[in-house]
């Protein structure tokens, strides 16, 4: 709260601002903290004065305490207030700084951009689902290089908010997973002006093996789902282009971390064997044969090549489109194969510098772009 108010006072002293806490029923005193916040707290130590009112509101939204429901509340509030610019900060972003307000809201407020996504400093083995699937595929399909398409800290313009609410929220009471990615894709598909801002180090979230499937649902599921409504847009796009950025486009750290690679490999190989009947209905015979062939190589020689991975993902997307089997089952079936790709990434980049890791991600992105016609072919074959 302090950092947000400080940032607003420092960078937008002449503008009226509202801080909204979309609360899912927390009992840790967050609503009280938000509503009792006084502007004099900031003024007392920073010697800054607001020239307009700064409102602090805490509201409890209906439904389950999910990120999607909270976001829906914020979007609705932003539209009702006719906000010129709105930024959303995730509760997990514990390292927020006042400068974030300028980095996120500034491009929209001053340079008329419509959607600002973050760029974080990450560990080279952090966010591998984003770097091995979501970023390359979004970039290949929509032609824009957004490093963090699944943005939890981001900002948008009033124009984009109205468009999104009109297109995706009106008369739709269902809660949809992966709204974070849905917003980015709506900005891409709607031809809005995009921008990226560097926000510093992303806090390391504690994850367990059980978190992979929900993460796949939120990202890959949402991405596959939007392919249908945006077919015209992504099927016509050519090569990808960079978007304006503030700060570095990537920054990777490489301090040693402990990763159980053996377990990843074991879960991949046993998953491929056990899921054979499911994979048979999703993948083409040639791709399945190749995937099964890799499991016979042994732990040291095993590699899930970029081309095989891209074909796998595209075939999953086409199967999802045609609902070959239950869609959630398709997403779940991707988990063991993703572990195989992650294992390969870890082996190949064990001693790699951040530049080498970036080169490896770039190579995968180019494979996704090069094989885009394959997705179109699969899409049409399975029509």
């Amino acid at each position, binding site marked *: 709260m302090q950092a947000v108010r400080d940032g607003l006072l420092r960078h937008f002293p002449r503008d009226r601002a509202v801080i909204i806490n979309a609360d899912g029923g927390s009992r840790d005193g967050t609503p009280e903290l938000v509503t009792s916040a006084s502007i004099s707290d900031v003024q007392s130590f920073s010697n800054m004065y607001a020239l307009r009112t700064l409102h602090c509101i805490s509201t409890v939204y209906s439904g389950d305490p999910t990120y999607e429901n909270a976001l829906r509340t914020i979007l609705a509030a932003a539209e009702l207030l006719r906000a010129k610019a709105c930024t959303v900060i995730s509760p997990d972003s514990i390292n927020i700084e006042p400068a974030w307000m300028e980095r996120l809201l500034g491009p929209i407020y001053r340079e008329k951009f419509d959607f600002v996504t973050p760029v974080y400093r990450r560990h080279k083995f952090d966010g591998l689902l984003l770097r091995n699937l979501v970023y390359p595929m979004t970039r290949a399909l929509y032609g824009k290089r957004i490093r963090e398409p699944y943005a939890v800290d981001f900002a948008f313009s009033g124009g984009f908010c109205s468009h999104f609410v009109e297109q995706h929220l009106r008369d739709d009471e269902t809660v949809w997973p992966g709204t974070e990615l849905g917003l980015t894709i709506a900005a891409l598909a709607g031809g809005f002006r995009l921008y990226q801002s560097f926000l510093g180090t992303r806090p390391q979230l504690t994850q367990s093996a059980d978190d992979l499937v929900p993460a796949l649902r939120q990202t890959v599921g949402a991405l596959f789902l939007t392919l249908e409504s945006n077919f015209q847009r992504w099927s016509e796009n050519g090569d990808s282009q960079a978007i304006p950025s503030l700060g570095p486009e990537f920054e990777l750290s490489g301090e040693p971390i402990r990763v159980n690679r053996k377990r990843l490999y074991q879960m991949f190989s046993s998953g491929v064997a056990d899921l054979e009947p499911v994979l048979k209905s999703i993948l083409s015979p040639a791709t399945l044969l190749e995937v099964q062939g890799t499991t016979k190589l042994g732990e040291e020689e095993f590699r899930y090549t970029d081309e095989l991975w891209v074909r796998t993902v595209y075939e999953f997307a086409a199967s999802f489109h045609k609902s*070959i089997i239950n869609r959630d089952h398709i997403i779940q079936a991707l988990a063991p194969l993703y572990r195989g790709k992650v294992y390969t990434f870890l082996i190949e980049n064990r001693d790699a510098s951040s530049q080498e890791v970036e080169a490896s991600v770039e190579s995968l992105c180019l494979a996704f772009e090069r094989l885009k016609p394959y997705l179109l072919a699969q899409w049409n074959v399975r029509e």
Partner: protein
Amino acid sequence: MWEMIIDELTYALQELVRSFVHFFPRLLAMLIVALLGWVIAYALKVILRGILRVARIDRLSENAGATQLLSKAALPPLTEVLSRFVFWVVWVGFLLLGVNMLGIVALQEHISRFFLYLPRLFAALFIVFLGSLAASFFSRAALLAAVNANFPSPRLLANSIRTVILIFAVSMMFEELGLAEKTIIVAFAIVFGAAMLGIAIAFGLGGRALAKQYLEKKFIREKQVENQDELSPL
């Protein structure tokens, strides 16, 4: 004497001819109904086959695992099975209708019972089809969940779930058909009870040490390693 015999024979012959004259139109009507029934049944078969192909019922059946079951039983694909089934049901129905027209009293009751039985037959088939769909869905869900949770023997778990649901569906089918209801219920109870008892004994007594070791490994040691070593996908 001879005259009497000749009279009786003449009378019998006349009766036979009269009966045949009386019966012949019915026989002809029966043959016409059977022929008409064949034409209608064949037309229905062709129409149904077309509709099922447009509805891609074979793909649904393949995904539900029904095609594998049919191929194991050396039967054609589901579209063909359903269309042939409809053909035979309709044609047999017309044949029985024709037989009914012959006016043989003893057969009439059986024929009416057959027609009363048809809805139950369709309901039973529907139950089996839904059962195979549910078995396929839930066994696949269990398989995926078990694989992603690194559960040992996920296929065994998935196959067990599939088998239990199919046994339920088949026993419900027999109950719907009214075939050996008591035998089926008793057999089902015995098989199900025996399976559960077997599992309970195996885990509770035979595999006590193994179960203890497994649970310790699963929930104490592995959980710690998992949390230490897992990478954040996002």
